[in-house]
């Protein structure tokens, strides 16, 4: 059915008295909204924990970098894996992907809270209509509402993939920087060491933009979720005016 310029559904009210008493709702959240209401409580603390862990690892790695620079250039570049430089470089390689995955989980949590807000708007709108004794008309999920959950999922998957690529690259990085820097600098054309050095630099060049792409999916999901909230609020405003006009006529 199309009402108020949107595709709508009419919900049958089972027990109007219970809705007025507040013991029952005129409708329930959709399955995705109900899931979002549960999931944000998991995603946001998980994301925050990852960011805090990244910060702690960053401090420890910073101390190790400081120790590396505690020696003269000639000393630190001549000895293989000086002050665990291979490990330091490996952490530098996987840590950005890990912390951005934490940020992504938090952005996913925000998207889910917005989904939960939409669910609550749906219930509140239905309850008000049931309480005043008119047909409970609700808008069908608009395109923006259908798009934002898969976009959020794609964002999280992209960030997860970037994190795993970072972990894989960190092993290559550890191998490369486990050698003395003089050996890395002196690697001959066609050698495995030079190829691996090139690989580390080449993958890093597109890995950061890939992480931003994941963030772009998540920000798109947030924008579309907010646009859906606007649609819901505007529908409620229109529906109130329509009910008032029905009463007047």
């Amino acid at each position: 059915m199309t009402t108020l310029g949107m595709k709508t559904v009419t919900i049958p009210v089972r027990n109007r008295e219970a809705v007025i008493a507040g013991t029952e709702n005129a409708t329930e959240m959709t399955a995705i909204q109900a899931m979002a209401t549960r999931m944000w409580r998991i995603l946001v603390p998980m994301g925050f924990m990852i960011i805090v862990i990244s910060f702690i690892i960053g401090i420890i790695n910073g101390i190790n970098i400081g120790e590396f620079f505690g020696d003269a250039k000639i000393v630190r570049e001549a000895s293989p894996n000086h002050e665990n430089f291979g490990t330091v470089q490996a952490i530098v390689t996987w840590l950005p992907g890990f912390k951005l995955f934490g940020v992504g989980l938090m952005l996913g949590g925000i998207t889910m809270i917005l989904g939960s807000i939409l669910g609550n708007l749906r219930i509140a709108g239905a309850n008000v209509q049931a309480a005043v004794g008119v047909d409970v008309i609700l808008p069908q999920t608009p395109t923006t509402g259908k798009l934002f959950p898969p976009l959020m999922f794609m964002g999280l998957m992209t960030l997860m993939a970037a994190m795993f690529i970072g972990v894989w690259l960190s092993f290559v990085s550890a191998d490369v920087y486990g050698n003395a820097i003089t050996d890395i600098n002196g690697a001959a054309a066609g050698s495995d060491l030079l190829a691996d050095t090139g690989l580390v630099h080449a993958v890093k060049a597109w890995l950061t933009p890939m992480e931003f792409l994941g963030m772009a999916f998540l920000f798109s999901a947030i924008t579309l979720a907010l646009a859906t909230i606007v649609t819901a609020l505007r529908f409620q405003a229109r529906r109130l005016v329509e009910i008032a006009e029905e009463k007047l006529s």
Partner: protein
Amino acid sequence: MVSADLKRRVNETPRLKRLAYGLMITGFIIIAASFVIGIALGLSIADLFENAKSVRDAAAPDDAATRGILSQQGTIAATTAWLTPLKFLGLGSFLAGITTILYVVIQSLKLRAESMKVSLPIILGVEEKSAE
């Protein structure tokens, strides 16, 4: 009585919503473009690292054999310099879009409040009682 102005406003789509969509799409295009540029940059870096460091460091503009390597190094360094700000430009576009749509949420809440203020007395029959 519901005014014609309120009826018109509840039925129109806010123009700022379209602006928010525009900013979101712009941000997405910018970030997707930076990803593609990043891939091209990665390929160029992989190509550059086929040469030993001594060859890369010895590259000179007046040497026909190594001029290409020097040019490639310059392109990589220059691209890296503007690629990061480009990514943040895309991010900025997204954040501007989110701010705009949040402003539209505020407007929509105000509109719904106005609609409630006008409609609820009619729906609940309070208008007639207060007039009596």
